């Protein structure tokens, strides 16, 4: 017997495009998303190469040139200590990205691990983890962070001081690390639950998809199925929420700095610049406008990019 010859009429001709390239095509058609992507890339570039871009040191004071309006010499003017606002905003970008990336990374690791365990192994882990998640989500964020910072900062500072006295290791003098440690830690603590929920839901739904059963029917090992079948299919929504999460983390950091529990001066952060600017905005509006504008831009850019990725990675979603 000969093999059946395929009927050429039933073959659909479509140019072979990969899933990711497909997503890229869709993303490119979305103007807002491209705007978001452009801003994010620009800000990232500024954050990385900040020190080489700034005309002044962010700490150098020029008391003869205080509170100057924007000019060619000082693009965003100067503040009440005569520091160049443009340079401080640029350094603030670095702080914002550092906080956003580190916090999101920590939250992602915690959330993905817990979510995957809950989804994959089911009861009793599922119940315990979901209980933890609900609890973490039900505490008002700002309250939690303020409490942590207020209650932990002094004991840790004292402990560091004692360590320094005992060991004379200069590491223990760097109190800036307490700041970062507490800011990163407390922000990550309130940021992981959405990732845990998302990953759990993803794993739960992917686990019952027919292609997982089909992969098991091929005799593939659990590890291969996890790595090549479950994880890649869960990635799309995760990328989307990470993009949105980065923007949220930046806003959160500014909110904390504004409340005085974020990164402490003199390290420039958009939040503490806004907080300083707010006191004098009637006289020197540029001190408020410059950091507030950049923060707004960053947060809008991340949310446009997130929305764009969401549409691009969901071929069945709205066009």
């Amino acid at each position, binding site marked *: *017997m*000969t*093999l*059946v*010859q*395929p*009927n*050429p009429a*039933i*073959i*659909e001709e*479509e140019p*072979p*495009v*990969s*899933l990711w390239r497909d997503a890229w095509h869709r993303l490119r058609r979305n103007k807002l998303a491209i705007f978001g992507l452009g801003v994010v890339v620009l800000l990232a570039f500024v954050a990385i190469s900040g020190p080489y871009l700034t005309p002044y040191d962010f700490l150098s004071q020029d008391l003869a040139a205080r509170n100057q309006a924007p000019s060619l010499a000082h693009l965003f003017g100067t503040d009440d200590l005569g520091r160049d606002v443009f340079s401080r905003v640029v350094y603030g970008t670095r702080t914002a990205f550092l906080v956003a990336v580190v916090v999101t990374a920590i939250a992602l690791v915690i959330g993905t691990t817990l979510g995957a365990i809950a989804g994959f192994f*089911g009861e009793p882990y599922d119940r315990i983890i979901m209980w933890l998640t609900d609890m973490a989500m039900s505490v008002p964020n700002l309250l939690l962070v303020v409490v942590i910072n207020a209650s932990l900062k002094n004991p840790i500072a004292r402990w560091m001081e004692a360590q320094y006295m005992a060991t004379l290791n200069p590491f223990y003098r760097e109190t800036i690390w307490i700041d970062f440690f507490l800011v990163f830690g407390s922000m990550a603590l309130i940021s992981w639950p959405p990732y845990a929920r998302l990953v759990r839901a993803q794993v739960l739904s992917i686990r*019952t*998809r*027919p*292609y997982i*059963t*089909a*992969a*098991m*029917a*091929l*005799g*593939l*090992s659990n590890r*291969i199925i996890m790595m*090549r*079948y479950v994880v*890649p*299919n869960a990635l799309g929504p995760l990328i989307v929420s990470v993009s949105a999460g980065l923007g949220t983390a930046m806003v959160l950091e500014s909110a904390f700095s504004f409340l005085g529990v974020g990164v402490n001066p003199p390290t420039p952060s958009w939040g503490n610049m806004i907080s300083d600017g707010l006191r004098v905005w009637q006289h020197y509006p540029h001190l408020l406008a410059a950091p507030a504008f950049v923060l707004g831009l960053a947060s809008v850019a991340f949310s446009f990019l997130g929305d764009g990725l969401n549409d691009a990675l969901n*071929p069945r979603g709205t066009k």
Partner: protein
Amino acid sequence: MTARNAQERLLDVKGLTVEIDGRRGPAVIVDGIDLHVGKGETLGVVGESGCGKSLTMLSLMRLLPNKIKVTKGTAEFDGRDLHKMSTRELRKVRGGDIGFVFQDPMTSLNPVMRIGDQLCEPLIYHRKMAKADARKRAVELLRLVGIPGPEERLEAYPHELSGGMRQRVMIAIGLACDPKLLIADEPTTALDVTIQAQIVDLVKDLRNKLGMSVVWITHDLALIAGLADRVVVLYAGTVVEDAPVDDLYANPSHPYTRGLLASIPTLSDAPTARLSSIGGTPPEPGRRPAGCPFAPRCPLAMDICRREVPKLEPISSGGSHRAACFAVNKALKAA
């Protein structure tokens, strides 16, 4: 064992019982099924939607979903009980000795993996092939199942192929490691009629060429008339009739089988004739009537049918044709 013939059993399932631990307590879905497939034989498994065809086959490979468990019975493949194997041995059987083609071609392929990579997976895993060799074999397989331009298709993602093409790819994956047994679970229900026929022809050719055994699941008796050697009819998780395919068509015995055959339109029917169908619906698992599960829908039901469960008994001289029905047995004894 004796020389190779259809009597030599490759797959031998005895008393297979599958239960679900549902919200309303445990319910039996598959109720003591006996099945066997000889070497080189093609077995058709027929039954309405929901009668437990897929779960029976999944249970053989220990692929049942959560909360659904095999509670009784044995399933010997090549002399070894699939339900008692270590996970390691079982993985070698899955995809190696037994190829599986799933019901839904649209969702049974990994959407983020290229066709070629999915085809190579079992070859690399079971045959320990190098990537380059596996790709060569993948091209051969795609050509074997009649996919044009196989080299380019390797790079395609599932969503770039039509349903018929995807079903061919699934068959190619099922065949990748030259299985001794191919289990095809309604591989054509999602496709339109011309493509259905093509797929049936394809499997027929491949079976004749490769000499493997096939279990073909369907709810369409007409479709497997030219394909199967023997047919098992399932109703509500039990075997109600088991016969060589020609016997079944010439002499359908169980009222359910007769109902199924009567609901197939034939060319001699007047175009205006109404299609007959079996009234009522099959019982839900857990709400099975006492006695014969078909009794509520059966035109021949008697008192005994509502009290006792009929056993699968031979109704032909050779014993190859069996049915589980009191009315059939009574008629035979009377004759």
